[in-house]
């Protein structure tokens, strides 16, 4: 009986050849970064997943702000992304309006910036390196809410 193996696409074939050749080993810093990712989990957190935002009108340009929205059952986190000189600025809005003592942590794999959320639900972080981002929102008496990791590049 003839077996029909699933078609292998070019990328898989190239990857298999390289893997078998053993000439492109994984750099040590990639392994270290992958191990460190484990420290970024937030046990017991509720996930806020990305939801579509209305497409901005008009012509897009490099300077234009992007809006990301993440929703969990009882909390929405919006992030307005701008970039200056290759770095990322985030202006955030938590809704519904959070109670006093609510904090956010804006995280990249390498650093975390903590902010108190204002009475109007806003927070801001500037000058972050581009790459992967996630925001943890901690409200008194609630489980933390953590947004899905999202790649942000200028």
């Amino acid at each position, binding site marked *: 009986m003839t077996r029909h193996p699933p078609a292998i696409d070019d*990328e898989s*074939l*190239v990857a298999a050849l390289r*893997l078998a050749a053993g000439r*492109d080993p*994984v750099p040590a810093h990639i392994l270290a970064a992958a191990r460190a*990712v484990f420290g970024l989990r937030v046990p017991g957190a509720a996930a806020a997943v990305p939801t579509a935002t209305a497409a901005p009108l008009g012509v897009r340009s490099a300077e234009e702000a992007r809006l990301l929205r993440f929703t969990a059952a009882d909390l929405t986190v919006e992030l307005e992304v701008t970039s200056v000189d290759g770095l990322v600025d985030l202006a955030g809005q938590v809704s519904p309006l959070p109670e006093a003592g609510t904090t956010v942590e804006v995280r990249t794999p390498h650093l975390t910036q903590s902010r108190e959320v204002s009475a109007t639900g806003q927070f801001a972080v500037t000058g972050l390196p581009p790459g992967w981002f996630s925001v943890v929102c901690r409200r008194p008496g609630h489980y933390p809410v953590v947004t899905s*990791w999202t790649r942000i590049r200028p």
Partner: protein
Amino acid sequence: MVSEAPVSDQHTIDAALAGDQAAWDALVARFSGRLWSVVRAYGLSAADAADAVQGTWLRLVENLHTIRDPDRIGSWLLTTARREASLLSRRNRGERLIADPAATEHADSGPPRAGHVHPDPALTVLSADEGRRLWRAVEAMHEPCRSLLLLMATAPDAGVHQLAGRLGMPSGSYGPTRGRCLNRLRTMLTAQEAQP
């Protein structure tokens, strides 16, 4: 250089879910080589490849509790890595011109849903034997395929101009020739598979 792919057992996943760093490190050690190879196969720079691999592990941290079948964790990781790599590769070619990142980058790069995991047999279960079989097939090919595939696999950082120069062909011919060689190799492998 290619290690056998042991089945990622439920115990390792349970331990990682319970907060055991050593169990996580075991997953990293087991799958990093494959993830690196697959993202590099999209022609990504070392920095972009690092970004794609890191994103894949971040997605696993988010989704580990949803992976019901431990045998599929390898496929899940490879599928996720391919999506990340493909997005970056398209972006580098200037194809990322869509306004809403939540509806595009993220939806595309999100964790694969159950049932939509690319099986990726070539990589998930690439054993040392199969790696040798792959290279025996390449060695049986005619030129320029034999040299082209060897060079492509062993000089992962070389650009098209450099590769074409070393093969003595115009740069514009490299891509189409590579495509034909990969097709031929695929046909040879399929023919081998079909033999009893």
